């Protein structure tokens, strides 16, 4: 069985992460992984809620060491945590304040430097996608799938050429993109990971300033747009990686010119992980990473690959220019992508209609992107006896805030046709009706 190492750093004193302005070496990182692993049970599941990236990476490595599976819930709403608790008994929680490990800033004993390796078929993580039933669908990821896709994507984008670069990411690491393109990209390619997740443009600038050159910024279209609009001065960048939703070509060009660094995008989904990359300024065409192949049939486009299990039907409309090259035409009808977070209308409708007091309800994706800010969903509900505030409060406990409807309108009835269906036209008319719901 093929095995892949936890990290790609060559020596014990190579820098794995920067935390609080100080470097953490590979030796110190591995010592922390070992120390935490000794305190975890063997096997089972770990809910790694650490926001500190170094702490998360230590927890992820320790879980791998013990053969435990890290769960990546789509959100941390109370409802989701309750479901996970029910589904995975004796789930171990790791948090920023659990005190289970201390990363020493002192260089570790160099003679003891040995990087652990894990078999390619060991299940490392479970990501969740929103099924149409309202029940999150687990997607098991083997260590081989994660390591090979991150190595393939990094190589396709030229990351190895940058050497021991520093990496700042603006995305959370508790989902596939963040896990792959922040945590694992840094660990597998021997980069130095900034332990914080900067939020405001000023934070991003100062985080980058704490790293030496070369510097990599991993971000999303929403963050990139605000970063450019803010006009904050950034330290010299050498590479920008953007994902979660396709970037408008003009924004990609603008970013390359103003930030003076090449910008690459990654395409993928929770079911498959990273599949393809492109340098948006140069081409609209995506190139599959090494070992990934696509094919189309009546149902849509299927992805398979050397390190993927079976074939996966992709939720996007894709035009193939070859088995490894394609143009992306947007999402399939039921799919929604709000600020890079994916869900389906069926999933959201299920949650709306399962709220006590809701007789009928529907989420609607407005037609036009306003071009200003992030697009939001709207929703209509028939819920006599409930106020908009109460309904919103209950939705908030069930679904990710990005999908909360704006507006949410209470109506007397939904405009269902004779067969009970809601047509796009009828919903658009309802949406444009200025009468406020009460």
């Amino acid at each position, binding site marked *: 069985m093929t095995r892949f190492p936890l990290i790609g750093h060559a020596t014990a004193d190579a820098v794995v992460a920067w935390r609080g302005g100080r470097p953490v070496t590979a030796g110190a990182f591995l010592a922390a992984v070992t120390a935490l692993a000794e305190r975890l049970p063997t096997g089972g599941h770990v809910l790694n809620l650490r926001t500190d990236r170094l702490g998360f990476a230590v927890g992820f490595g320790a879980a791998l060491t013990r053969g435990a599976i890290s769960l990546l819930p789509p959100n941390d709403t109370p409802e989701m945590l309750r479901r996970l608790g029910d589904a995975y008994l004796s789930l171990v929680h790791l948090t920023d304040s659990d005190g289970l490990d201390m990363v020493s800033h002192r260089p570790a004993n160099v003679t003891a430097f040995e990087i652990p390796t894990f078999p390619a078929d060991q299940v490392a993580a479970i990501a969740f996608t929103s099924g149409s039933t309202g029940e999150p669908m687990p997607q098991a990821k083997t260590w081989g799938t994660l390591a090979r896709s991150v190595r393939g994507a990094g190589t396709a984008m030229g990351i190895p050429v940058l050497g021991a670069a520093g990496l700042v990411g603006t995305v959370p690491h508790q989902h596939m993109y963040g896990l792959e393109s922040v945590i694992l990209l840094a660990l597998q390619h021997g980069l130095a990971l900034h332990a914080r997740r*900067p*939020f405001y443009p000023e934070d991003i600038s100062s985080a980058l300033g704490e790293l030496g050159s070369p510097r990599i910024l991993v971000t999303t279209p929403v963050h990139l747009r605000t970063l450019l609009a803010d006009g904050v001065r950034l330290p010299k960048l050498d590479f920008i990686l953007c994902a979660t939703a396709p970037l408008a070509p003009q924004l990609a060009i603008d970013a390359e010119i103003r930030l003076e660094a090449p910008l690459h995008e990654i395409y993928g989904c929770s079911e498959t992980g990273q599949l393809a990359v492109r340098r948006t300024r140069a081409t609209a065409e995506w190139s599959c990473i090494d070992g990934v192949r696509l094919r189309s049939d009546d149902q849509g486009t299927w992805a398979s690959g050397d390190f993927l299990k079976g074939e996966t039907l992709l939720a996007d409309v894709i035009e193939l220019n070859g088995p490894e090259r394609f143009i992306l035409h947007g999402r399939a009808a039921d799919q929604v992508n709000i600020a890079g977070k994916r869900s389906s209308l069926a999933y959201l409708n299920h949650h709306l209609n399962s709220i006590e007091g809701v007789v009928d309800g529907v989420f609607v994706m407005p037609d036009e992107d306003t071009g200003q*800010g992030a697009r939001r969903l709207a929703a209509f509900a028939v819920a006599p006896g409930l106020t908009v505030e109460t309904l919103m409060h209950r939705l908030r406990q069930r679904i990710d805030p990005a999908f909360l409807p*704006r507006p949410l309108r209470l109506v007397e009835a939904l405009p269902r046709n004779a067969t009970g269906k809601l047509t796009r036209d009828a919903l658009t008319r309802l949406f444009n009706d200025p009468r406020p719901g009460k």
Partner: protein
Amino acid sequence: MSEVNSMVRPELELATLIVDTLNLEVAPEDIDPEAPLYGEGLGLDSIDILEVALAISKTYGVKLRSDDADNVTIFASLRRLNDHIQRHKAA
């Protein structure tokens, strides 16, 4: 609620900026200046906060930072946010 928690003029201007920036379906004067902006209350999420921070930077020249000691309380309410802006605004 406006009788209980009435807004001063800079607060109303800030409320208008937030409503306009995010296309909220609420009148600026109906925002409770003491209610939370994030999560429950006005119901903003992190994407909104980024948008509002950008608008504040453009309008008032005040750049928000996560490592401000009082960052957690800045978005606690319209009133707190306005206080923060007034304190840090270029004279």
